């Protein structure tokens, strides 16, 4: 297993956000985490990337315990996140944003190689190379955030709501790219409210409700699960 969360709990002050979550992500998989607003999806991501300390449980990545490891060192180990709400740097150009993604890396030739790769995945980014991140449209910012996360050459890519606020056409496109990135060899953990898309693209998925995992299975299984259908897919 590339990533193993074992009985993770996390609290914001007195508010308990996660109640003992356990999940795994295997090498080469796309795993989706679906659930309603406030279920704890983004919090789980923050625990994995190290933005919030966990109060209980352990996180193992690539065979090593990273529960107490600093966020910046997790990036070095190969965890990369595209944050919710995109979180791009508005005053930096597209290229500077992408270079920021390669912050932990030193070999110039490899960074240039990855820049080309990202420009290949998102030709629009190449067109906007010199434009400030803040001037991009929502969809472009999302592409930039994903591209930037790829620039650290991660083993595990964490995508937090990549389809948020995007037009249906763009949602299709971004999920196509996610699958492409996965086929190129990057493991992906995906948080989504768009359960239909997430479940149909993921190998496996977990359903999160109020800080607990209530269901797990393959994407196809959950897609046809009556309870999931009822709650998240909007069909009875």
């Amino acid at each position, binding site marked *: 297993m590339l990533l193993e969360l074992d009985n993770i709990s996390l609290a914001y002050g007195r508010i308990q956000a996660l109640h003992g979550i356990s999940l795994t992500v295997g090498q080469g998989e796309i795993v989706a985490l679906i659930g309603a607003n406030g279920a704890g999806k983004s919090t789980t991501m923050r625990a994995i990337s190290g933005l919030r300390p966990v109060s209980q449980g352990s996180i193992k990545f690539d065979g090593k315990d990273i529960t107490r490891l600093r966020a910046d060192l997790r990036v070095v180990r190969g965890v*990369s*996140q595209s*944050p919710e709400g995109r*979180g791009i740097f508005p*005053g930096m150009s597209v290229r500077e944003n992408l270079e920021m993604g390669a*912050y932990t890396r030193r070999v110039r030739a490899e960074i240039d190689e990855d820049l080309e790769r990202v420009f290949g995945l998102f030709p629009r980014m190449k067109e906007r190379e010199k434009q400030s991140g*803040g001037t991009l449209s929502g969809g472009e910012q999302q592409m930039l955030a994903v591209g930037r996360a790829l620039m650290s050459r991660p083993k595990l890519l964490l995508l937090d709501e990549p389809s948020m606020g995007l037009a249906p056409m763009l949602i299709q496109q971004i999920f196509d790219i996610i699958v492409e990135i996965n086929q190129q060899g990057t493991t992906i953990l995906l948080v989504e409210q768009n359960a239909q898309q997430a479940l149909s693209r993921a190998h496996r998925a977990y359903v999160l409700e109020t800080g607990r995992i209530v269901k797990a299975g393959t994407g196809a299984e959950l897609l046809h699960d009556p309870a999931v259908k009822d709650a998240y897919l909007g069909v009875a």
Partner: protein
Amino acid sequence: MSDTAVAPAKEKATFRENGGVRGWFGRQPAWVRWAVMLLFAVLAFLLPYAGDIPVIGPQITTEGIDWPSALFNMSYYVLLALGLNVVVGYAGLLDLGYVGFFAIGAYGTALLTSPDSVLYSHTGWAWLGAAPVALAATMLAGLILGYPTLRLRGDYLAIVTLGFAEIIRIVATNTTTFRGDRGFTNVPHPPGSSGGKPIFGVTDATPYFWLGLVVIILVIFGVRNLDRSRVGRSWLAIREDEEAAEIMGVRTTKFKLWAFSVGAFIGGLGGVLFAGEQGFINSSTFVLQFSILVLAGVVMGGSGNMAGAILGGALISYIPDRLRGISLGGTDLYEYRFAMFGAVIIAIMIVRPQGLIPSRRRAMELKDREKEVAPL
């Protein structure tokens, strides 16, 4: 009757569209840029003689305070603005207690050198010997303030830093070691003599101004190098989005401490120079107004841009000094300096909210933040 196709009018971009003065400057070859900067430096060094320029000279120089002293005041304000610009403009940490570092620099110097100090032995330290110790103390103070406030942002950080500066002032006022209002006398001047007379005397402030300029130029180069390095890039990322920076692998705590201690160091430099020129310091110099004034200078000039910080720093010192000694209907305009100052700042913030010489990145960030606020 000509059948030549109307050639599409080649749009000639205006000067402004090409980035204005800054765009022009950026396109020049390196030697032109260096020459322009050198020209500015030379002009700055000639400022003490500005009064000799016919007609406009007397309009520039101050009346109620001798011109070299006014220039020296400007030099340490510029220094402070440059330092605060690192903390506020580059790293985006709102520091309202910047005067604290200025105070530590000045007090560090006075404690080691003044005969009034408890540390004074018969020989006493020279100003130059005390300077590095005082600067080390300010950097340490920067870390001491920075460490516990690492997790604070925006307004919260502002309040804590404000408290920090007030603690320093109150301790200085109320302890015998720091001598409160009585202060420290006979702080030695910088070393050096020419023709048997000391260069840094008590009558003419010109050499102090030149010394200040030299320090400013060194600081400009130091900060510029930092800004263009990995440190500067990390500050920029932290300022624009601290969480995103962390996800990129920026060790945010380390670089925030860097910003605090670099800022403190520069503020301390101002204090060391100030103590060396005045020869006397007491606790009533280091009031809250001072921090606010310097911050106003940075914001007015253009936060995040060194040229802006320099201009802003110079103006906050120059405007009040220029008003000194001008009386209108029997009252000295100097008395109204803060009122006029407030009016000027309000005017600038209305006309140019991003500052006189804005940082392009900051302008973009402001716009981005507006977008977030707009739906409310």
